[in-house]
């Protein structure tokens, strides 16, 4: 890649990398892949990294994914039925050199059950740079964030449309790696149109923090990614990619979709490339794709 590499290990590796890419004028793209849905899932991680991801979010399946919609629920069910465990995921990740930072996304009980210090150490040993635990809000995150800091794991925190200004400042102050702006009030999943709340949360976060701001949940198409990245530093795309993988898209299908997202974000004249570009109205229709797999 042509972008300058940040440090590869140690506290802040994720955030340094994202800041460096942002400083180079690049819009950030973090795709989400559920671990264990197929034998070649690590190839998928590698393929989306090579196709232009700035980091990859890797889901460790949990039996009760409270904030996830049908697509990621199904991926978790498939992965668990394939005997995917936190240990098997981390073992696979430790053998992987994706060339971009890896962020684990799972629910708190998986981490809590392993023990906070032990879990943080296991993530670090597997080469993971950050963790997202969507059911641990700011008020409860202290013990985990301390353990994660010690192990050099970035604690990514979510900020929601319902989050008040003071609380949002406190979230940004505690977040490491990036701040995850929740694009809409709802569970993960694809939406026809980008919610107006996605632009609003991006603007609110950008106004108060230097930490990279990525918006996810309801960001499903290249056009939506471009639209939200017109204000935010980038986008997280989950269900749209996972749906393609569940349909058998494989590493090639995943790479093609991520390349399409990357291409749209990099296109000259795209709203993303024009700082403060249009975010509220309907973007022109999404580029036509020839299916995801």
């Amino acid at each position: 890649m042509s972008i300058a590499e940040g440090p590869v290990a140690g506290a802040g590796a994720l955030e340094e990398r994202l800041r460096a890419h942002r400083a180079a004028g690049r819009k950030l793209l973090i795709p989400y892949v559920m671990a264990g849905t197929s034998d070649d899932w690590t190839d998928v991680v590698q393929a989306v990294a090579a196709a232009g991801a700035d980091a990859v979010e890797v889901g460790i399946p949990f039996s009760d994914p409270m904030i996830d919609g049908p697509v990621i629920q199904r991926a978790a069910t498939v992965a668990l039925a394939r005997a995917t465990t936190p240990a098997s995921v981390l073992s696979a990740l430790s053998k992987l050199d994706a060339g971009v930072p890896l962020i684990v996304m799972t629910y708190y009980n998986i981490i809590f059950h392993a023990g906070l210090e032990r879990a943080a150490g296991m993530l670090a040993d597997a080469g993971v740079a950050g963790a997202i635990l969507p059911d641990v809000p700011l008020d409860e995150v202290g013990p985990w964030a301390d353990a994660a800091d010690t192990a050099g794991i970035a604690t990514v925190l979510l900020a929601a449309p319902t989050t008040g200004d003071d609380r949002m400042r406190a979230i940004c102050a505690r977040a490491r790696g990036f701040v995850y702006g929740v694009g809409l009030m709802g569970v993960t999943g694809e939406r026809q149109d980008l919610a107006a709340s996605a632009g609003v949360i991006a603007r609110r976060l950008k106004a108060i923090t230097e930490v990279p701001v990525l918006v996810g949940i309801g960001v499903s198409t290249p056009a939506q990614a471009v639209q939200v990245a017109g204000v935010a530093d980038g986008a997280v795309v989950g269900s749209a990619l996972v749906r393609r993988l569940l349909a058998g898209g494989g590493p090639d299908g995943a790479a093609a979709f991520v390349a399409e997202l990357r291409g749209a974000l990099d296109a000259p004249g795209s709203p993303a490339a024009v700082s403060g570009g249009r975010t509220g109205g309907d973007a022109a229709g999404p580029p036509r794709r020839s299916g995801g797999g």
Partner: protein
Amino acid sequence: MSPSMMERPEGLGRFGRFGGRYVPESLVPACAELEAAFVEAWADEAFRARYAAVLRDYGGRPTPVTECTRLSERLGVRLFLKREDLAHTGSHKLNNVVGQALLTQRMGKSRLVAETGAGQHGVATATAAALFGLRCTVYMGEVDARRQELNVFRMRLLGAEVRTVSSGSRTLKDAVNEAFRDWVASVADTHYCLGSVMGPHPYPWMVRELQRVVGEEARSQCHEILGKDPDVVVACVGGGSNAAGTFAGFVDTPARLVGVEAAGGAAASYGSDGVLHGMRSMLLQDEEGQINEAHSISAGLDYPGIGPEHAYLGSIGRVAYTSASDDEVLDAFALLASTEGIIPALEPSHALAWLVRAADSGEVARGATVLLTLSGRGDKDVAQVMELRG
């Protein structure tokens, strides 16, 4: 005043190391708003009077305490039942939903979502929604909807929309997941009317306070009948709302407190520390932290966790938690029907099953006075029991 005596929990809903508020950021403001509304309402005499009046004039409170003379003779104890089966909608669940529906109005919201297992909480929520003119959606696992189809019809009759849940184990825990998912998307006009002493703060505390009426009535009724507190107080525990309400009335007495879980869902007896559905509590889980599916004859107790205050009361030894098997429960169900002319729900039949065992083994001494909360009536279970025992 210590939180061990079932007062207001500390901080963000802590009962010792249990409780808390582990919810997605999107829901934190709604939980905080609910906490503030409840604190204010619970200190407001007009609200308390309205709540009490609805429970009295509409709900049929106070419910009686009945001495079971024939069954007592058989067991060698003096058994008293707190008759929540006689409350409107057939269980203690109405106490909670009336309080939450009044709070919903106070917060200016117009819709309720709820989860239900056996259907009792769903029916109660649908009832309160009809009474107060609120829209209502109830989530119910596919398995439960099948074994409790009459309650599904009741809810629809009451004007509620019932959505069956086909994810996960298709029982109560999955219905809770779906209710949370609905709430994340609808929180602006919707209140999540959680049915038990579980979930994120303030629910475990709030629901216990709304069920406290069970224990307070029972205590004064025991004093009237016996002139003293009973020796033993026993209730069934799924999430644990009828038990929490009952124990709240007796926790500061010398009475021995016993909570009885379903053998296939005994989180307090066989679970370990974990975080699920917004709370830290005792959960049934595997070695990786995946939540196990509970299995019980009683849909209302098919939950792999327990309310955080129960986890705490168990950890300090104030309440003894134990379990009863499906077979023992069916025997107890039939025993109460044939000796007292009362058909209990399968849930409180767990408490009866324990008492039969404990009286037989001498664990409960001969002549001991026992207050057992009969949390609901068995009409909903008759078809299922007929299939099993014909």
